[in-house]
């Protein structure tokens, strides 16, 4: 356990390693393209520009407020789904590193989390434009947005560690996670609103993704802070680390053997 915690701290505090490697990974993907990583921004913008009016119409919503709701929610969803689906590959994709140099395993997790945050910030540009255009009534709740992002990072950390471990050992899990994420996209209020369920609206409270999206979305579209969602997110964060630490301590040293 002590070694696992040491790994965690050394990994997180290796500020000269993971930010550079994470950024490198993003750059690598868009090298020699004129827009570079801003392709992320552009493709997200195009996607939302297409979906917004269509679903707004389908659901009979006021197009302005719906567009805003969809944009912010979708960006949050994408960050979360990346954490899950790509979290599976943190160790598998770092095989070259893991088998050649001794680095804290947490560095690979941080590298991956950082990459996802970079992607999220590129997507956020779309949200900023949409917010500037529709001008929702924003308040002090905005101060909660960075805290929400911090919670995304924290949860990405334990989630990717657990999933990375399991997926390194059992190669079916990435497929399972992939389909679960797909289902939850439809089960989670991203393109629809909880209110549309009528008297069944309470069911969204059972969906952890809803709470994660809510803490990011509510302040950005000018809705009141949902304290219950914050409570759920906090509880999940603590529970996640409580599961991750013993698992990481037990199996950390087996990772190299599993790859």
């Amino acid at each position, binding site marked *: 356990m002590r070694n696992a915690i040491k790994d965690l701290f050394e990994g997180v505090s290796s500020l000269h390693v993971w930010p550079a490697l994470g950024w490198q990974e993003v750059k690598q993907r868009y090298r020699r393209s004129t827009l570079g990583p801003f392709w992320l921004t552009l493709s997200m913008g195009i996607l939302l520009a297409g979906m917004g009016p269509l679903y707004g119409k389908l659901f009979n919503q006021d197009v302005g407020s719906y567009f805003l709701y969809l944009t912010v929610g979708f960006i949050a969803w994408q960050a979360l789904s990346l954490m899950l689906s790509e979290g599976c590959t943190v160790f598998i994709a770092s095989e070259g590193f893991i*088998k*050649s*140099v001794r680095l804290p395993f947490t560095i690979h997790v941080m590298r991956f989390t950082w990459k996802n945050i970079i992607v999220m910030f590129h997507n956020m540009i779309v949200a900023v434009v949409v917010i500037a255009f529709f001008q929702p009534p924003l308040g002090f709740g905005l101060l909660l947005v960075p805290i929400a992002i911090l919670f995304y990072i924290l949860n990405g950390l334990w989630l990717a560690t657990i999933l990375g471990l399991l997926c390194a*050992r*059992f190669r079916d899990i990435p497929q399972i996670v992939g389909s679960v994420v797909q289902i939850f996209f439809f089960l989670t209020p991203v393109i629809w609103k909880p209110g549309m369920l009528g008297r069944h609206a309470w069911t969204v409270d059972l969906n952890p993704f809803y709470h994660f999206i809510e803490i990011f979305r509510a302040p950005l579209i000018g809705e009141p802070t949902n304290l219950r969602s914050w409570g759920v997110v906090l509880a999940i964060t603590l529970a996640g680390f409580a599961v991750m630490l013993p698992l990481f301590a037990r199996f950390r040293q087996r990772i190299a053997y599993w790859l």
Partner: protein
Amino acid sequence: MSRILAHNLVVDFPIYGGKSRSLKHRFIRTATGGAFAKDAADRVVVRALDHLTFDWKEGQRVGLVGHNGSGKTTLLRVIAGIYEPVAGALEVQGRVASMLSISLGMDPEASGYENIFLRGVTMGLTRRQIEAIVDDVCEFSELGDYIEMPMRTYSSGMIMRLAFAISTSVKADIILMDEWLSVGDASFTEKANKRLKGLVDQAKILVLASHSKDVIEANCSVVVHLDHGRLIA
């Protein structure tokens, strides 16, 4: 004080086929009670290192010899801290530099200059430490203006020069090498040899795995023979 001390060191590699690796089989195995013990006992493992005991002290130049698959590279990786021993104890005192894959972390699309930083980061160096070696690396690799060009424009020899120059630019107490590194054309090879020799000479312990008798004789004071993961005196 540098030292590598092993006592009954064992490394087993579990072999996961397409079958035993899937979760489905894990479930079925657990569900069908009887098969469990059999399966668990049948799990194939390859014993890569079999109860190794040795004590390598400061000043020693260890040459690892043995046929393919005798465990040389695995032993180097265990000393580098990549594989944790399955049983037994290993104590490594001193800063380890492993020359196992010298171009790890480099990106063909990045410039040579950027790659110095990428490779340096992979070696665990801080930005300041990398800045301190940049001039030396540029000069030694003789890449000239190419250092500003993307690495994909390099010939393979040029890539190796750069990787070699970076990997050999930091001093360490213990150096692990899988075959003596040799890069570039005739004149560069000589220069590279000299640099590597200098690095090895200042190191306290060298562990070098090689198939070449000449290389072992020229560089090592102790020869350790591995056969099927066991030490042969």
